[in-house]
């Protein structure tokens, strides 16, 4: 039997804020950077929600509040040249990577901003060159697991020492694409790391209706894949586990699946009042809010002063406000541009002279309708 048993680790937080800063290789700036990314996302999303309610954002709005630690923790341990893809709840990962809030806001407003120029929702961003965030298919759940395997395959074929990290929700572990992608990645021992954010629901659907096992990691042995399961709202725990998964994959040992138990604090989208979520569940997780916990840790264990934190938070609030102002001032895409950029130019696109020798006769037409017994072609009837 070639199975690895998933490691499970679900401490009862926040009984103790565990990591000792002296054990950590991070200086104060770095600790601040983590906080900024998480808090910026939180603040940004709170604002986005209220803009949505004011009718200033079109379509639907999906937020990642409550899942900031999994996002930031995971991408923070990536190295130069590694790739990652997000789903709907990883805005803080983008912010950690340096994406500008004002650009995200402009995208949500449908403004004429690269790379999508108004063609995509604000939550979808692909930018390989600047961000290591390759285009993948955001529409259908789990469709990014095959693409994730493809990016990992590209690394392997090129002998690049990089990994492909793909965020995934619990619901997205149900579609067939999830398994097809994992299977392919495992057979070829590709450097694919799945960060599975089990936030208790897929839209309104509880875990029990999604899967007959307790943990997503329970499925990893079926693909001979390295797996761990952890509490996902502790930034340092996330970083440790993600790092192990990433180094496993980077070491050529095949894919890893790191499962984090966390919670979606808002509805599926802002139209959803999440009436189906039991109040106790909300409370349980509110007590374990990743930003609240990290903030407490900064104050209690890492000797941040309240004024320091307050200053960071004021800065963030100002940044979000100015992001909105900036975004509102950006132009909408020009209607005429709608038909542009459907096909990439190609070396053999037809030129006028190609139309000169269009006469190419067929000497002996080939007419089907033979039965097997009449077919004398080489190689059999097929």
């Amino acid at each position, binding site marked *: 039997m070639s199975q690895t048993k998933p490691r499970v680790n679900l401490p009862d937080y926040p009984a103790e804020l565990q990591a000792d800063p002296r054990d950590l290789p991070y200086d104060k700036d770095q600790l601040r950077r983590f906080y900024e990314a998480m808090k910026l996302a939180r603040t940004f999303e709170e604002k986005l929600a209220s803009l949505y309610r004011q009718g200033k954002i079109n379509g639907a709005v999906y937020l990642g509040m409550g899942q900031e630690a999994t996002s930031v923790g995971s991408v923070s341990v990536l190295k130069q040249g590694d790739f990652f893809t997000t789903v709907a709840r990883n805005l803080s990962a983008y912010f950690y990577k340096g994406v500008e809030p004002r650009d995200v806001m402009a995208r949500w407003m449908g403004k004429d901003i*690269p*790379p*999508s120029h108004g*063609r*995509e929702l604000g939550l*979808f961003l*692909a930018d*390989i060159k600047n961000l290591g965030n*390759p*285009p*993948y*298919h955001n*529409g*259908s759940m789990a*469709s*990014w*697991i*095959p*693409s*994730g*395997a*493809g*990016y990992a*395959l*590209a690394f392997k*074929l090129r002998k690049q020492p990089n990994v492909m990290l793909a965020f995934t929700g619990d619901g997205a572990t149900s579609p*067939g*694409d999830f398994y*097809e*992608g994992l*299977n*392919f990645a495992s057979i070829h021992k590709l450097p694919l790391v799945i960060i599975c954010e089990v936030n208790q629901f897929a839209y309104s659907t509880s875990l029990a209706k999604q899967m007959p096992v307790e943990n997503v990691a329970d499925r990893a042995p079926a693909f001979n894949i390295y797996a761990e399961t952890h509490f996902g709202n502790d930034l340092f725990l996330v970083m440790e586990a993600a790092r192990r998964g990433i180094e496993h994959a980077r070491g050529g040992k095949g894919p890893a699946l790191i499962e984090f138990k966390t919670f979606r604090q808002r509805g599926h989208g802002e139209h959803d009042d999440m009436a189906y979520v039991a109040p106790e569940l909300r409370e349980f997780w509110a007590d374990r809010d990743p930003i609240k916990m990290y903030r407490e840790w900064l104050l209690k264990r890492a000797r941040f002063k309240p004024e320091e934190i307050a200053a960071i938070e004021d800065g963030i609030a100002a940044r979000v406000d100015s992001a909105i102002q900036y975004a509102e001032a950006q132009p909408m895409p020009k209607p005429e541009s709608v038909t542009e*950029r*459907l*096909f*990439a*130019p*190609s*070396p*053999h*696109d*037809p030129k006028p002279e*190609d*139309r000169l020798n*269009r*006469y*190419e*006769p*067929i000497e*002996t*037409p*080939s*007419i*089907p*309708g033979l*039965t097997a017994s009449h077919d004398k*072609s080489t*190689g059999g*009837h*097929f």
Partner: protein
Amino acid sequence: MARLTYLQAISDALKLEMRRDPNVFLIGEDIAVFGGAFKITQGFLDEFGEGRVIDTPIAESGFVGAACAAATVGFRPVVEFQFIDFISCAFDQIVNYAAKCYYRWGIQMPIVLRGPTGGGVHAGPFHSQNPEAWFAHTPGLKVVLPSTARDAKGLLTAAIRDNNPVIYLENKFLYRHYREEVPDGEHVTPLGVAALRTIGSDLSIISYGATVHLCVEVARLLEKEGASVEVVDLRSLVPLDRETILESVKKTSRALVAHEANLTAGFGAEVAALIAHECFDYLDAPVLRVASLDVPVPFSPPLEMAMLPSVDKIAGAARRLLAY
């Protein structure tokens, strides 16, 4: 020039492009060790190694998704469907990922999705389908259907070098039944230029893929009956060579559209609608269509042949048009 079958021409194009560009790799079921269900990639594993000729588990959605992704970072994957019927299993990755990637992000995805289409070999409902209309209706995909060995090579070469997802649909009857002189070495046929298979002045028959052969046969028959028929072979549906179609119909004033896919909402409807619109003042007769009857492809030869377009059916429609 060598006399190659349609199938050998495809092999030839694949091989030359793989030699020319290390970013081209092949992926699909049974293509490496076995050389492909139809033996198109026989010997490729030896020459190119298993990093470039990748056998996969049966998981069309999975390997299409993976290949699409690799295409956005500089590879040029060529995916083989064992039979094109199984492209339905990868439909989502094709219409939602491949087709929309460049439009959404400006990141190009040069991938070729190829496989055997078509009936006439009594392979039954799941090994005989013609899916081109689905993809021609999906913006962002190019759709190519060679009818000759020369084109099979030239169009595949262009498809592999194209910077967009290309659905390249081969015809399995032609694989070993059609053979002609094919240029050695590099041979490129641009995507979006139709060919004239016969030149005529009384009637235009617009077709593509294997059905072109039936149309050429019809043109010969009708020539004996005194009619001059022009057979336009589209070669690609997207991009569509509207000019050649319209020029031909404006000259002949009569148009017939023929293909092997089912009639209703087939690509022939698009061509007929285009002609009806753009050539209204030129037409001396209605635009007719001949296509497969609107049923799945049945296995038993008499049923299958009744279902498919035929020389008789096309000739009958042509005669009605000429007499109109």
